[in-house]
């Protein structure tokens, strides 16, 4: 019975934790500009993130150590700096987008301008990571995040996608001159969903909750069911944007535009539901991203770490946590556009995926860490394939953008 309760909680967590500013913005833009033509990217990304979450949980449960510690011990200090630097760059941008998303959510719900709300949102995030215990951080926003399932209700109320739209799913139709944008969005969708902060966050969370090999089945089910269920939110948003914004000729590049899809379906309550979903997902993601970065630094350098420890017990860890939020506030104030930050952050992540995930795959195949629980060939090939795909698509889109002027 307790096991099933654990599963339910795990699934809820994964479902609510799936979306963030990156997935919301990329899904919205994809639907508005290309109909269902980028649905495949969301599906591929979902498969990859299922594999990744399962591996991360297995790694933490069996090896008994968090990921950043393993990277440094396996590859040495100099190599460790590489994924660390790529994480710090890409995820700081992402964190700025998440905090911006929180501010925009409040702005949509209240009608206040979002920019003055931005520092307040950052303070809110900092206070929670500074004060709250791990379980609240993991479960609170996740449960709230179930509101994203209201996107499905929105689709149903609008009558579902018509036959013409369904046919745009495959083969995808890309208009003349639209290829760089199409590939760029494909890369951003992959990067937004397969975010490596997840590995640092999830492996550390498993340590904070004391997982062991007895939790492996639960881990597998949670990864597949939770991530599968969670992807419904982002897929629903692609469909919603395709149904509402595409016919209006809008590009879906701002969060209020995306909110208008739910307004169209459900009226004023729809707007509020979108705002609540955005608030919950961005809050959850802001926790995960900032903690993921602080875990990465503290574990790599061997400092005391832990969200359940008082700040005096893990002083340097909490200093990094604070610094990360401050840097993101600066980024967010310099580039006052959360949606663009989310796209840039997601694309950077896609570009950096080989750096962050290649060492992970190596470690997942090391018998000294995982004993008999190393990766099967299929998960190696699938994960490697998706990482390669995301990287190639990201590079291609950049090359095409610059060549095309």
């Amino acid at each position, binding site marked *: 019975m307790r096991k099933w309760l654990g599963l339910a909680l795990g699934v809820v967590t994964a479902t609510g934790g799936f979306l963030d500013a990156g997935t919301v913005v990329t899904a919205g833009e994809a639907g508005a500009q290309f109909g269902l033509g980028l649905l495949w990217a969301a599906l591929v990304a979902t498969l990859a993130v299922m594999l990744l979450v399962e591996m991360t949980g297995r790694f933490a449960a069996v090896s008994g150590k968090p990921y950043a510690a393993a990277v*440094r011990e396996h590859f040495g200090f*100099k190599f460790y700096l590489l994924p660390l630097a790529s994480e710090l760059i890409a995820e700081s941008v992402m964190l700025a987008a998440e905090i911006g998303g929180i501010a925009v959510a409040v702005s949509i719900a209240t009608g206040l301008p979002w920019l003055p709300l931005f520092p307040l949102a950052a303070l809110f995030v900092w206070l929670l990571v500074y004060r709250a215990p791990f379980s609240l951080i993991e479960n609170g926003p996740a449960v709230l995040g179930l509101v994203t399932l209201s996107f499905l209700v929105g689709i149903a109320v609008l009558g579902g996608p018509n036959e013409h739209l369904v046919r745009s799913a495959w083969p995808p139709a890309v208009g003349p001159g639209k290829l760089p944008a199409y590939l760029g969005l494909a890369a951003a969708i992959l990067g937004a969903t397969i975010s490596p902060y997840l590995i640092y966050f999830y492996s550390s969370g498993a340590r904070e909750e004391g997982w062991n090999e007895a939790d492996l089945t639960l881990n597998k089910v949670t990864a597949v069911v939770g991530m599968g269920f969670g992807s419904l939110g982002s897929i629903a948003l692609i469909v919603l944007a395709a149904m509402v914004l595409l016919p209006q000729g809008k590009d879906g590049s701002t969060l209020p535009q995306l909110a208008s899809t739910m307004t169209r379906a459900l009226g004023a309550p729809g707007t509020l539901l979108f705002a609540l979903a955005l608030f919950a997902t961005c809050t959850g993601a802001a926790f995960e991203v900032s903690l993921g970065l602080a875990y990465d630094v503290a574990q*790599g350098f061997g400092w005391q770490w832990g969200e359940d420890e008082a700040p*005096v017990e893990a002083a*340097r860890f909490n200093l990094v946590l604070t610094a990360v939020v401050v840097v993101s506030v600066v980024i967010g104030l310099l580039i006052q556009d959360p949606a663009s930050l989310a796209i840039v952050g997601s694309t950077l992540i896609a570009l950096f995926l080989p750096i962050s995930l290649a060492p992970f795959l190596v470690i997942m195949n090391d018998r*000294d860490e995982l004993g008999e629980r190393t990766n099967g060939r299929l998960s190696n090939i699938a994960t490697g394939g998706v990482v390669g795909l995301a990287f190639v698509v990201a590079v291609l889109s950049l090359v095409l953008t610059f060549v095309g002027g």
Partner: protein
Amino acid sequence: MARSLHRHGRALAEARQQVLVMRDLMDLQIESADGIDLGRVDDVEAEILADGQAAVTALLGGPQALAGRISSRLRPLIRRLLRDRFDSRIPIEEVAELGLVVRLRGPAARYGLGASDRWLAEHLWARLPGGRR
């Protein structure tokens, strides 16, 4: 033998009988007797004995040691900047146990490594509301 030492964790006395490979020591977590994570083995100090063998004499930790890991030319540069203030040397005699982690004989307060954690706790977090939670 490299990783089996990590897996099972043996007393230092036994480890001393074995030839340590750098990989067994470098980058390991250093923990005090009271269970505080102080830092990692950023570098090791060794001396060549009369019989030509090398013996590890101390574990090193801090920004200068880390700079040396990145590039040998970076180390003197950082040293001129920091003047040894943030680096610490833990004599190998202080090591109680060598396994998955390096466990030291004394409590955290005895070592320079991790002193910045205590300084920050005392001068920053302890003064903020909620710092002790």
